């Protein structure tokens, strides 16, 4: 048999998926077509190109006085510090609330029906974006950094407890049994059997969430919950590009630093 006919024979053995694939592609194109009907493609506004240019230019020529104003409360460094504080405190509060939540929703700690209820509550909390909680908390505690902390705390609980549950359910019972056999008392079992297994993973999760919260803290400022978001939205709406540029540059540097630190810390913990 020549090489060509062997190749052809092999090719003919290929599963026939043409019809199925065509159907999937047509269906997807249909959905895509429908979505273009909903999203009116408008192109740029008349001044759009100029504005896009101004925004990009502003990032390279920010208002340096504003960017490097370390002394007063209005400067970019202070706003970033406030944003960091909101994210940090939100993460701490969220992580502390998550610990009992997670233990009460883990199948190896409580009976499975209790765990199911806990998981359901956590899932509902996780459904809503942080901004929705922000808009609600503003009616409770008024605009300001405090609202940002509460919002991030609630929003963090959804994700942190889910990850904590996974960590707790992976606890190795063998270690605790071994300690039991060696005659350890309850506190010793927790100290040597449970805490070492949980602590580094718990911390690592919290640090990861802090990284996310830093980004959310920026967004929350826009709904009035403190931090750098509010000055940013004002600067952009007022077309003060130099100020907006300073805020954006500050934000870029800040987020990159936080990401780098978080990655380093988590590498150490792993």
């Amino acid at each position, binding site marked *: 048999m020549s090489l060509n006919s062997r190749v052809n024979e092999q090719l003919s053995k290929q599963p026939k998926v043409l019809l199925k694939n065509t159907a999937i592609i047509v269906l997807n194109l249909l959905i895509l077509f429908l979505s273009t009907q909903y999203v009116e493609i*408008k192109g740029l*506004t008349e001044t*759009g190109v100029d504005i896009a240019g101004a925004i990009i230019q502003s990032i390279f020529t920010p208002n340096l006085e504003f960017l490097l104003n370390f002394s007063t409360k209005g400067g970019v460094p202070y706003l970033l510090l406030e944003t960091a504080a909101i994210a940090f405190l939100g993460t701490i509060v969220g992580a502390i609330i998550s610990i009992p939540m997670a233990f009460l929703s883990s199948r190896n700690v409580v009976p499975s029906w209790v765990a199911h209820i806990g998981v359901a509550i956590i899932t509902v909390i996780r459904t809503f974006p942080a901004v*929705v909680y922000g808009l609600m908390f503003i009616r*409770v*505690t008024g605009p300001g950094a405090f609202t*940002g902390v509460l919002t991030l705390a609630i929003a963090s609980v959804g994700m942190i407890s889910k990850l904590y549950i996974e960590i707790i359910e992976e606890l190795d019972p063998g270690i605790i049994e071994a300690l039991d056999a060696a005659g350890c008392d309850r506190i010793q079992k927790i100290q040597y059997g449970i805490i070492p297994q949980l602590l580094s993973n718990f911390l690592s999760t919290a640090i990861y969430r802090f990284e996310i919260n830093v980004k959310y803290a920026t967004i929350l400022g826009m709904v009035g919950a403190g931090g750098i978001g509010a000055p940013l939205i004002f600067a952009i709406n007022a*077309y003060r590009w130099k100020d907006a540029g300073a805020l954006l540059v500050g934000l870029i540097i800040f987020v990159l630093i936080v990401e780098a630190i978080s990655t380093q810390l988590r590498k150490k913990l792993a």
Partner: protein
Amino acid sequence: MERIKRLFLPKPITLSNGKVIQPKMSPAIYVVPILTFMTLYSIQLTGFKLATLFRRGYQFFVILDGMIPPNFAYFEKVWEPLLATIMMSILGTVIGSLLALPAAYISSENMMKSKFVKFITKAFLSVVRTFPILVLALLFRIIFGIGAFAGTMAIGIFTFTIMTKMFYELIDTADMGPFEALMSSGASRIQAFWVAIMPQLWGQYFSLVLYNFEMNIRNAAILGYVGAGGIGLILNERLGWRVYPDVGLILLVMMITVYMIESLSRTIRKKLL
């Protein structure tokens, strides 16, 4: 007291040959004070007051209480922004994922030879990734005008930066054997990539697309706040007017939509992998 001290400074161990070993000091000895200091400083900076929370906290439950039962008659006004939100996410995800393919190619270690190109694209992507999606929407709203198109573009760019990163990491770990075989038989790099690398990754690629779509549905729900279309607009308006039964319905509808799309996407993803 002894026990608490031992938490930080473990007991010295005496070996059988008489040698005494002091185990390492726990890192808690400096981590705990640093964390405490940072917490206290943050509390002071953000004006965190438990008293306010106890005094005003019930307000949160007043809002929740107002949402139950939701005003089902309001659904008439909700489905259209809801559909717009979903369509924005679909279109944005598709745009972002398509753009991510070539961008991932030129940022991957094993495909792209030029270190300079890799560095530039990766640096650019990390910078754009620092922008939260609402900031992008805010900028695009001014460039493209108020409406769903600005939101779609924001979702598209956001997806693009995340997809590119996730996908070039996949390309980096792909099996290079078939690629080298094709290269040695005279295919160009792009041809070899398309025929030898992509077939390994299509399943994971579509899985990533769906994962991003899930995220984007949630993100799209908030874009309305800056006037970039979708369900966030009416949510913000109804909350502002304190029409809580309507808010309840919007949240309920959002919850059901997110849940349905997540279940659907998870089922498809399981089949893909």
